[in-house]
């Protein structure tokens, strides 16, 4: 298919490089240098999508990121597909596959369109809320179909094959925007020697200079652009980032830049390249040269394809060599739009008429157009367009802009393109990201950046400076200012000469009046992406939504992926007029990051897949793998869960492991337990203050179990601490609590008791810990150590230093299983060798490796708690029946003591830790099951507690559980019931939480 709208010459495209692409299944051709939007227009594609609510056909309106309609799905495969790509910002590449994001069965014959036509008048703002509100339970059903009909793009179903990354950057001056002002600013700052980053969102630097008919030093403006870029590229401290949108201006001059490095090359990145990069920049000064977006006029049927922004028409003609029509009608409020008419004439096309809302325009551009014989209709505007899938005529009438009235009958002009310009809205988004409110300037009819908490200078159009010569000067001065404020010497330089022209101010016009009232006139669209009309905004204000934020939320104005870049100012002007207040009184909505959508890939960077979260392995991990361990995640650690033998399920493996420990000996990798080395003359006093029990009398060589509480008296960690020397202790914490406890110790030492001389060092990774547990553990250990393991030489709750497997070791005789146990600690890099020696010696004892599941069963049989399983931040030591671990007479009011003496903690009938023995010994209570005393009571029942741990015990031959039950310690022998979700009931008897060996005979041998 030929490119029917391609001009025979001109544009910055490479006509020697034709590129094929497809849109909605049809193949077209464009050229290298085209955007997808330019290529679609070149091929005469008028309809690119259907509208959100009314399903009206929509075409391309703009040429930049402000485009509301040409939001497409790109990519030929499920893995490569990307939703909501603005065709105006997507460079064309060979084989690009695009489709509309909505419209069914197709954008040209859309069934929803009929609904829009029939029901359009009955779909005011809030329509969905008002209509589908009742009955409430059907909303889910409605929503499914509403979303399907209205959808904007579709998330990919397969993994993105590309990679993305972050880059952290620091610079003296970050220049945002590579148009006239930005280039001049970068030049000034770069020449001063400052470290400069220049970021621009387009494919090429230059902004409007690339399609401007104005000259610099008498030559095309693009020549100056090339010269400046060459100079900047030669500066060592200057970084040029094209295709890079600064999308967020965060606190303390931290800005984020979304760089699309290969999106212009193909649907997946070339091998070895990153598709997109997120630059995280800390800039000492920022120059915002973000330019301005042209504001469209709001008139009836302004959404029919063939209605465009005036400036966009120039861009397509001059930059891409594309004429999006043949016969142009222009509707303007200002001088600048006349350039469009001149460009159009130069391309050999017909300007039917220019409607200028000003009564008597006489600017230089106006006179130039007039001299070429263009029909200029003053004091007039296009009040309505006609056409279904393409504009066929426009109605121009005389208007009184101030009184918002049409003063003559309309004149219908045949045309296929209506271009409108209501002036320029500075791109104040970034300047307002930290909450700074933009300020309305009546003289230029625009919001400009207000005060903000930003170290920035604004330059050019964003400042309300529009004439090219002034823009260049403003940019250069901003660059000088930013560089000198960061400590560099100011530079001077010659700026190119701009041909001076007489310009006249524009007139305030947002919504064009129609001879019918707003409510009765054909639809006048304000926000095309969300189908918000002028009538909708009027209705919202009539219904009492007076704040601009409320109007926005009620009508959905600016809620689209374009964030209302074209519609918002018109919308609030209409709301202000409808309420009879000024635009300043109305104010703007908040501007928040991101300026344009950022892909999830760029946000995630490398932090996905295996790199999403670090994984911690113990020194013995490869041994576990070799021995068939199944792993469990405990925090970031991979811990062996159980070691199944061939054909065993988890239940069988755990049963076998438990039996081995109880009958002979097992070995557990306990390296993940937190270990904190505590030293200093006040170490002992410090322990007294952070643990609930007393540490004053713990001798060197001994170890003690301790509970840690928060100030509220609730248990938050536990573990064994051993005394290595009078000033030296080593504390163990729970695996998950290690970092938390470390910080807890630090905050008390540093902020509350800095007078205590004590120091903490995390040594978790320095030591590997192997726990030998079971009646044969002594015999086995004796074969690999020189330590005297005799009952009296090495009693329970003591530790010894010596050689194990030939390397120095600390051995702790402590037990978490209730069996005779030794915890062998060796330097982590010796651990594998030591383990191999123990395993070799252990063969004759049937030494069995066991994992966390067996450890949990064994400790539960003994009633030992696990913090975070038996406790949940609302459990005191007394609730756990661990009052023996509370030093009630310690002189210092240690952490938790005051808290646990609050009235509520002393109350009778608190939930207390007890054992549960199901009446049916084969029934295992589900962990977390709620308990009741009377199962016959009506629903909702009064819950009296819940199951915290529950297992089947192979060694005891019945199921058992630990539970927190109201007043449980005084209810021994009573029955509780667990009513389960499936309607069944498990009955259990309340028993002591210690099921096995209550006297501790097994560990004291």
């Amino acid at each position, binding site marked *: 298919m030929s490119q029917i709208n391609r001009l025979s010459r001109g544009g910055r495209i490479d006509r020697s490089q034709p590129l094929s692409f497809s849109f909605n299944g049809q193949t077209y051709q464009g050229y290298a240098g085209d955007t997808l939007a330019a290529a679609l227009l070149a091929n005469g594609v008028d309809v690119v999508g259907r509208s959100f609510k009314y399903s009206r056909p929509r075409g391309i309106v703009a040429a930049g990121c402000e485009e509301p309609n040409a939001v497409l799905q790109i990519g030929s495969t499920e893995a490569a597909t990307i939703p909501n790509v603005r065709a105006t910002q997507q460079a064309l590449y060979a084989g690009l596959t695009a489709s509309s994001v909505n419209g069914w069965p197709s954008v040209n014959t859309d069934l929803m369109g009929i609904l829009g036509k029939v029901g359009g008048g009955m779909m005011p703002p809030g329509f969905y809320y008002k209509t589908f509100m009742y009955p409430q339970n059907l909303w889910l059903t409605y929503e499914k179909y509403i979303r399907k009909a209205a959808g904007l793009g579709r998330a990919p179903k397969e993994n993105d094959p590309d990679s993305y990354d972050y880059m952290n950057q620091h610079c003296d001056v970050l220049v945002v925007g590579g148009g006239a002002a930005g280039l001049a600013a970068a030049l000034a700052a770069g020449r001063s020697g400052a470290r400069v980053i220049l970021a621009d969102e387009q494919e090429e630097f230059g902004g409007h200079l690339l399609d401007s008919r104005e000259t610099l030093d008498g030559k095309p403006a693009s020549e100056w652009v090339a010269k400046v870029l060459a100079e900047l590229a030669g500066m060592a401290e200057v970084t040029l980032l094209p295709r890079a949108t600064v999308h967020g201006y*965060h*606190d*303390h*001059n*931290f800005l984020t830049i979304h760089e699309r490095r290969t999106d212009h090359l193909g649907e997946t990145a070339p091998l070895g390249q990153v598709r997109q990069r997120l630059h*995280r920049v*800390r800039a000492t000064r920022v120059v915002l040269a973000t330019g301005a977006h042209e504001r469209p006029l709001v008139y009836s049927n302004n959404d029919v394809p063939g209605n465009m922004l005036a400036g966009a028409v120039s861009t397509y003609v001059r930059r891409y060599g594309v004429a999006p029509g043949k016969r142009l009608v222009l509707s303007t409020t200002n001088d600048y739009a006349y350039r469009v008419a001149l460009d159009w004439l130069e391309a050999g096309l017909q300007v039917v008429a220019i409607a200028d809302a000003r009564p008597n325009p006489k600017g230089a551009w106006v006179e130039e157009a007039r001299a070429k014989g263009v029909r200029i209709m003053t004091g007039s505007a296009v009040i309505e367009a006609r056409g279904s899938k393409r504009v066929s005529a426009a109605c121009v009438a005389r208007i009184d802009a101030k009184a918002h009235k049409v003063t003559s009958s309309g004149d219908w002009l045949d045309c296929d393109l209506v271009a409108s310009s209501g002036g320029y809205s500075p791109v104040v988004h970034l300047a307002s990201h*930290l*909450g*700074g*409110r933009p300020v309305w300037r009546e003289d230029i009819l625009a919001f400009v950046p*207000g*005060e*903000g*908490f930003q170290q920035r200078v604004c330059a050019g159009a964003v400042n309300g400076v529009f004439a090219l010569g002034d823009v260049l000067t403003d940019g250069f001065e901003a660059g000088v200012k930013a560089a000198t404020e960061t400590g560099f010497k100011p530079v001077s330089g010659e700026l190119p000469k701009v041909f001076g022209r007489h310009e006249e101010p524009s007139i305030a016009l947002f919504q064009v009046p129609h001879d019918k009232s707003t409510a009765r006139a054909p639809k006048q669209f304000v926000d095309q992406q969300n189908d918000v009309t002028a009538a909708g905004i009027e209705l919202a204000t009539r219904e009492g939504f007076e*704040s601009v934020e409320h109007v926005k939320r009620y009508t959905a104005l600016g809620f689209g992926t374009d964030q209302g870049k074209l519609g918002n100012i018109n919308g609030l002007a209409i709301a202000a007029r409808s309420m009879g207040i000024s635009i300043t009184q109305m*104010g703007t909505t908040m501007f928040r990051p991101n300026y344009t959508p950022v892909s999830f890939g760029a946000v995630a960077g490398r932090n996905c897949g295996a790199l999403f979260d670090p994984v911690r392995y113990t020194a013995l991990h490869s041994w576990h793998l070799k021995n068939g361990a199944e792993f469990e995640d405990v925090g970031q650690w991979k811990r062996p869960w159980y070691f199944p033998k061939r054909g065993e399920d988890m239940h069988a493996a755990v049963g076998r492991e438990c039996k081995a420990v109880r009958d002979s000996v097992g070995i557990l990798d306990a390296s993940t337990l937190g270990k904190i080395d505590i030293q200093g003359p006040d170490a002992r006093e410090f322990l007294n203050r952070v643990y609930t029990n007393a540490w004053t009398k713990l001798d060197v060589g001994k170890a003690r179990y301790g509970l840690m509480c928060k*100030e*509220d008296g609730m248990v938050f960690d536990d573990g064994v601490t051993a005394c290595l020397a009078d000033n030296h202790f080593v504390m163990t914490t729970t695996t998950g609590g290690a970092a938390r406890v470390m*910080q807890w110790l*630090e*905050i008390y030492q*540093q*902020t*509350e008791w*800095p007078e205590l001389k004590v120091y903490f060092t995390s040594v978790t990774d320095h030591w590997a810990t192997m726990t030998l547990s079971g009646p044969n553990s002594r015999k086995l250990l004796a074969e690999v150590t020189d330590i005297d393991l005799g009952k009296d030489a090495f009693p329970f709750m003591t530790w010894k230093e010596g050689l194990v497997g030939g390397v120095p070791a600390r051995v702790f005789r402590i037990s978490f299983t209730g069996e005779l146990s030794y915890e062998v600690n060796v330097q982590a890099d010796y651990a594998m060798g030591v383990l191999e020696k123990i395993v070799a010696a252990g063969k004759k004892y049937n030494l069995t490796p066991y994992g966390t599941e067996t450890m949990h069963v064994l400790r539960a049989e003994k009633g030992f708690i696990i913090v975070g399983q038996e406790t949940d931040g609302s459990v005191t030591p007394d609730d756990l029946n661990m009052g023996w671990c509370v030093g009630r007479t310690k002189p210092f*009011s240690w952490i938790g*003591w*005051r*808290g646990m*003496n*609050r*009235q509520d903690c002393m109350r009778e009938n608190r939930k207390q830790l007890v054992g549960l023995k199901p009446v049916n010994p084969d029934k295992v209570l589900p962990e977390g099951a709620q308990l009741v005393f009377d199962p016959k009571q009506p629903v909702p029942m009064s819950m009296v507690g819940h199951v915290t741990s529950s297992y089947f015990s192979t060694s005891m031959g019945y199921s058992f559980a630990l539970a927190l039950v109201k007043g449980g310690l005084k209810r021994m022998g009573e029955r509780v019931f667990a009513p389960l979700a499936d309607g069944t009931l498990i009955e259990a008897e309340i028993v002591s939480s210690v099921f096995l060996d209550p006297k501790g005979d097994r560990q004291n041998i």
Partner: protein
Amino acid sequence: MLNIFCPHCGEQRSEEEFHTAGQAHIPRPLDPSTCTDEEWGEYLFFRDNPRGLHHELWIHAAGCRQYFNVTRDTLSYEIFETYKIGEKPSVTAKAKSAPLTSRTAGAKA
């Protein structure tokens, strides 16, 4: 993202390296046992939430692991000073009222 000067390291570093630890200058009662339940509850649970100047406790968690104090404007996020534990702030609400910025000036009542 805030840029915070760690008074221990003597360097300006990014917020990612730090954690906040709540309001500063809330000393633990010297003798908790003399506190009523209400006083103890006050100490444990009640904190100021000012609009403007605020003294906060921070830790350089991914750095020197030291705690320090920050005087920060909760409106503009401007940091006026950072100082070590035990030192007194030189910027206080009495000495300096937080600048009334456009964030407040422009907001609708």
